[in-house]
């Protein structure tokens, strides 16, 4: 199986892109945790390297199998991930107030990260076997909308508003792409606009607070308002060239909250400036466009929607995180792919990359 053709068919530019992002991420993590107590912070960037290495190993495994083998197990995988989410609700470990982690021996992981991939697979399969020669109507979307809402609600309960919204956006992107009736679109958008005020009551106090604070950051000098303002100061003071590696005062002096996870990019932006930020933003843009490209070239609808979903995931996740860092989006706690610290996140992202590469490799109908 491993012949020259195997390697020729790999989308090397994409691999290189991801590799760059990971290297940048690790270098940045080194800086973001540089000042943190030795015993804890010293190993965070190393851990990220181990996770990335493990992720690349997973990619290799994924590449050996035709992604169509995923068709029969797409739904079972979806249900497995749903039960993991239920497991989190009942037996999960909570870190700083929300219950997002499942303990697995000595380390713990976040099922909500894996759900993202499982949901994309399930939706891809659904629209693959339910292809009509017309636009999708309201009724056609009952099941896929349910597929999106179920994990979104479970994740909302953790509570993790960011990831829940991410799943909704992800589903919406796929629905919009495959084409839905205008009437359906108007009705459902209008409906959500009406329901939005209602959903306010479903939010936890701290989530409401964050949304309110986003509108008026000065109203909460100690909590989330602080996050937004400090992050903006970090980014803004980085100016054109940045303050230099390990020299960012906001990050190094620990003014930034969550600086190795959700706000990792603030550290990068402060130390590498406009130039550095633009490089990373461009890398993300290229990553998303190449996912779209792979979707466009895929040989069937399953591959198309799968690649599209992964592209949409990277798109929304980077958009929400970057938007948060620059104060354009409320603080909802979504990691930036490859840059933020987090084993589950990087594994999920690399599995996504593996699937993209797989779809790309098998884009010609010639294969058996």
């Amino acid at each position, binding site marked *: 199986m491993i012949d020259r053709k195997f390697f020729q068919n790999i989308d090397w530019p994409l691999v290189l892109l991801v590799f760059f992002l990971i290297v940048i991420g690790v270098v940045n993590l080194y800086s973001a945790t540089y*000042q943190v*107590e030795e015993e804890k912070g010293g190993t965070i960037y190393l851990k990220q390297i181990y996770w990335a290495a493990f992720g690349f190993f997973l990619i290799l495994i994924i590449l050996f199998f035709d992604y169509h083998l995923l068709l029969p197990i797409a739904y079972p995988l979806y249900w497995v991930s749903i039960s993991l989410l239920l497991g989190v609700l009942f037996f999960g470990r*909570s870190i*700083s*107030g929300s219950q997002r982690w499942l303990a697995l021996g000595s380390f713990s992981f976040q099922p909500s990260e894996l759900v993202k991939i499982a949901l994309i697979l399930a939706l891809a399969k659904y629209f693959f076997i339910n292809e*009509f*020669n*017309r*636009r999708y109507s309201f009724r056609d979307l009952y099941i896929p909308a349910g597929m999106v809402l179920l994990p979104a609600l479970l994740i909302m309960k953790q509570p993790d508003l960011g990831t829940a919204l991410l799943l909704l956006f992800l589903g919406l992107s796929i629905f919009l*792409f*495959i*084409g839905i*009736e*205008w009437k359906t679109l108007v009705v459902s958008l209008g409906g959500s606009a009406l329901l939005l005020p209602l959903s306010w009551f479903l939010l936890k106090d701290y989530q409401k607070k964050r949304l309110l604070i986003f509108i008026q*950051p*000065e*109203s*909460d*000098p*100690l909590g989330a*308002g*602080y996050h937004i*303002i*400090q992050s*903006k*100061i*970090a*980014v*803004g*003071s*980085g*100016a*054109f060239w940045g303050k230099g590696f390990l020299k960012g*005062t*906001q990050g190094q*002096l*620990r*003014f930034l909250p969550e600086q190795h996870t959700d706000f990792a990019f603030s550290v990068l*932006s402060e130390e590498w*400036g*406009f130039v550095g*930020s*633009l490089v990373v*933003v461009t890398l*993300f*843009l290229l990553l*998303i*466009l190449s996912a*779209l490209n792979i*979707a*466009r070239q895929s040989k069937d609808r399953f591959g*198309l929607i799968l690649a599209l979903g992964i592209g949409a995931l990277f*798109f929304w996740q980077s*958009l929400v995180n*970057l*938007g948060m860092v*620059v104060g*354009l989006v409320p603080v909802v706690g979504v990691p930036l792919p490859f840059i933020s610290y987090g084993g589950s996140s990087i594994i999920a992202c690399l599995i996504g990359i593996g699937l993209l590469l797989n779809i790309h490799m098998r884009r010609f109908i010639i294969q058996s």
Partner: protein
Amino acid sequence: MSKFKLYRQEEPADPQRQFVVATVIILLIFFSLAGRFWYLQIAKAAHFKQLSEHNRIRSLTIPPARGVIFDRQGTILVNSRPSFNLYVIPDDVQNWDDLKTQLGKLLNLEPDQVEDRLATKKAWPFYPIPIKSNLSQDELGLIESFKYLMPGVYVEVSPQRNYPIGPVAPHVIGYLGEITLKQIKSGQFSENKMGDFIGQWGLEKQWQTDLGGKKGGRFIEVNVVGREIQELGFRDSIPGNNLVTTLDWDLQKVAQEALSKKPGAVVVLKPTTGEILAMYSSPAFDPSSFTRKLSPREWNALFSDPLKPFQNRAIQGQYPPGSTYKMVTALGGLEEKVITPETKFYCNGAFPFGNRVFHCWRKGGHGMVDLHKAIVQSCDVYFYNVGNRLGVDRLARYAQLFGLGRPTEIALYPEKGGLIPTSAWKLQRYKTAWHPGETLSLAIGQGYNLTTPLQMAVLTATIANGGTIYKPFLVKKLVSPQGTVIKDVQPEVVGRLSVNPEHLRLIQQAMAGVVNEEGGTGGAARLPGIIAAGKTGTAQVVSLGQRGGRDHAWFVAFAPLESPQLATTILMEHGGHGGDAAAPVARKIFEAYFHLPPRGSAPISKQAGPDSTDEE
């Protein structure tokens, strides 16, 4: 395709067109994102650079006023007063050596004290480090006048616990202490940060969330030397709610004075509700010593005191109940029909059993004894007989009916449950069978039996009110600072004795005899005009400790006999005999509650001899 059909069934989306649309949208969004970076990092760079350079933004906490704790009449037991605290923001400091000598001079601080506090400066350069709390007026004046010489020094006002009438109920009210790392990690105190003081004991701990209030904050921009230039944001703090306790300050004070630092405990409760009117444990500690930070040395001194001033003996102290347990034995005997009120046993001062002889506390014996006389004069031989007829397990059942052997579940931490032994317990614990002789000791409240003063108070209240067990409680109301009642605590019945009411009646009468009849052991608690009822107890101390091993003195009592308003338990560690040491305390409590004139300290009935002791 007709127009109509086009409307009904739209053409499927053309993927190629969708890709173009998606690409355009993505490019537009990323372009605006890049625009935002341009805006922050180029257009506004100067502004943000200035903000970050000396990190000019300071976030200061406005501590909330902690709730007030009242007694049942509205007397303030604990409130808060402003305390001025000095702290340093390391990044604003320009010359460390100068600062240290200056502060040392102004505040009389040892240099190493300043040094200790500043050890964290490297990790948190913008975090205020507390140096000294509770500045005196003089210190405050000095600091304010020399502050301009010491950039980085700030004075902050925070509320501090104040005990206007002194420490009358320290074990109940508890104290505040600095939040521990473990508590922060537990996630239960999301409002709090390192250095905050939270309730660590007693009601202060139990009601932390309600008393604590919510922090406010100020977000200010400062200049290079740390002086405030402008306020960027403000959120006021929300004061905590107030607690109205069931305590009666007058009774609490009587208990405090009566024990006068001798180890022991007093519990007073309302038999008809379970409200605790007084709970005092002695020796006590001074909660105001916790308003400042204690050094490890001071902590050690406090906690290594052999008299354990931090132990709340009323709920944590476990003692054999001695003869106060005889009501349980009597009730068990009557209910199980092993005796009737008329059953008589002859007491000649000794009770041979197996190859041993169990003695009565009165060497010469009590002669013919029925139930009433047995309780009034606390005859041990009578109860040896009853216990022997009952057996250990039936006896234990009646103790458990009263709630002995398990915590009363009063909302106060940490309560002990005591111990009521059964044959099964002994088999499990010591892997040996129950010895019938041990039952005899149990019947007079010695042996393995352990009870807390609170449990005995609940038992007394249950006998007094005719068999209803109320859960003891300490907080009547939770009231907002504006005066709205947030929570109104109602008495809670946790059990009812399913026994013949006539039997309880007999026991009440006998307890009245203990106090009021000739030859009763509790004459020292006799009141003018009101019939009090009680029972003395003397618990043998088996292990002779360094305090000479005098017996523990017990007295349980209630009054008036008909329609009881008060039930009380007094325990005095190594106090000697219950009738001499503990009963007068009960009298003082009754006198204070019923507004009776105090009687001279001499016990009224000289016949009240020493109380029971176990086999020798």
